[in-house]
């Protein structure tokens, strides 16, 4: 039996903030300059999904690793920590 990313995210405790701590700087860049949409595969929480012509950001799933900030080939993600106390809380780590 193979577990899905949804199964895995279900094991975690999240306190999502109203506003996303992650932002796509320019959707235009995603549409026109980005070739492989790498964020939709390397993100360990599947935060980024390409829908038709927009990059959707599910910040409530974010594990705050920082991979997207560093690995987006276009440096197109504005990355901050969630507000203090918000975001994921690891119970094991």
């Amino acid at each position: 039996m193979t577990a899905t990313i949804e199964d895995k995210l279900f094991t975690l405790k999240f306190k999502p903030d109203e506003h996303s701590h992650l932002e796509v700087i320019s959707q235009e860049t995603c549409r026109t300059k980005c070739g492989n949409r790498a964020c939709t595969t390397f993100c360990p929480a599947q935060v980024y999904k390409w829908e038709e012509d927009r990059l959707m950001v599910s910040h409530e799933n974010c594990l705050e690793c920082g991979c997207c900030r560093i690995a987006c080939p276009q440096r197109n993600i504005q990355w901050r920590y969630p507000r203090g106390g918000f975001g994921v809380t690891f119970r094991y780590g």
Partner: protein
Amino acid sequence: MEEEKFDVVVVGAGPAGLAAAYTLTKAGLQVLVFERGEYPGSKNVMGGILYRQPTEAVIPGFWKEAPVERPIVEQRVWMLTKDAAISLGYKSERLAQEPYNSFTVLRAKFDRWFAGKVEEAGAFILTDTVVEGLLRENGKVVGVRTGREDGDIRADVVIAADGVNSLIARDAGLHAELKPEHVALAVKEVIALPKEKIEDRFNLDPGQGATIELIGEATGRMLGTAFIYTNKESLSVGVGAITSEFVASGIKPYELIEQLKNHPAVRPLLVGGEVKEYMAHLIPEGGYKAIPKLYTDGLLVVGDAAMMVNSLHREGSNLALTSGMLAAEAVIKAKEKGDFSAQSLSLYQRLLQNSFVIKDLMKYKDATHYLEKHRELFTVYPEMMSDAAYEMFAVDSVPKGDKQKQIFKMIRGRRPLLRLARDLFDGWRAIS
């Protein structure tokens, strides 16, 4: 909160930050630690192995009361192909004796305990607070800006212990943004299993622990490693690879860990286990060459924020704890002189250079480069060894002499002997 002034503000209540805070507080300095999570450890992920001696250097006798999981008596390395595993292991009775060499730990439990000791010693720890930037005067760091109302706190020195993403070190201009080649992305699961099952499957006496490091097919042939560690009543199972490799391969981290868990050599260890938590984190991999500037006027950088990880030996927690302690020692001396300038704080770097921290990082500075140039370690070599071993172990009435010829023909076909010798030689040079 009024604008109070502390001797030191530490950003981040992980191992490096807590080690610094503990050492400073014990020496009588006023310390305030900021932690953005609900509690120390809540935003931290580690394999993870804690090494007894380096930790005792900071907090003697910790292992007698800290929530450590199992002392490690056996270490194994597995090289995986699609359907096989070649293993190397070392188990010793000496490792099973107090005071022990290393323990498995779970960050959320251990850091919380350690933070409690730091508070007992007199430091303040403020959780749920993100440090958003540094306060500066005449180019010197004089405190931090936080997300709280009236959130400016002044201090003689700020210690940036804010982990691999270290926005503080970047804010201070000590280094540019991290490169995807310099960090690894790792995912991990804590999988619950009854302690007797763990002890049966890993061949352990009650309470003892074992570790397995895995390479090859375990990382989808990317440059990285996987691990399986035994906790008291769970296993820590994880896999990571250099971030640029994930970008290039398109492999999804959560699918990679599923593949690892389903590998025929791994699956039986996990049967009946329940995934309690899934997590992800970045690990500094750039080594010595990626270390940023470590200090400036009024600021020091420690732990993962300073890229201090010796990945070849899977060591990070000991470098973090030691660098935190050494940073504290440098600050204590600076306080005696009343001088918190870069010149005065440069003692930190000298202390690091005289310790295993910089010495080990320097020794292995070419290791990652070697691995990048020798991917056959993750692909060709495990396959070659597996096929050779299979031929040797298959008792099928083929004369041994013929088998030997077959094996050598197979090896030469995959990797000319000269290349093989060169690979070994280059490898030796890279770690000497």
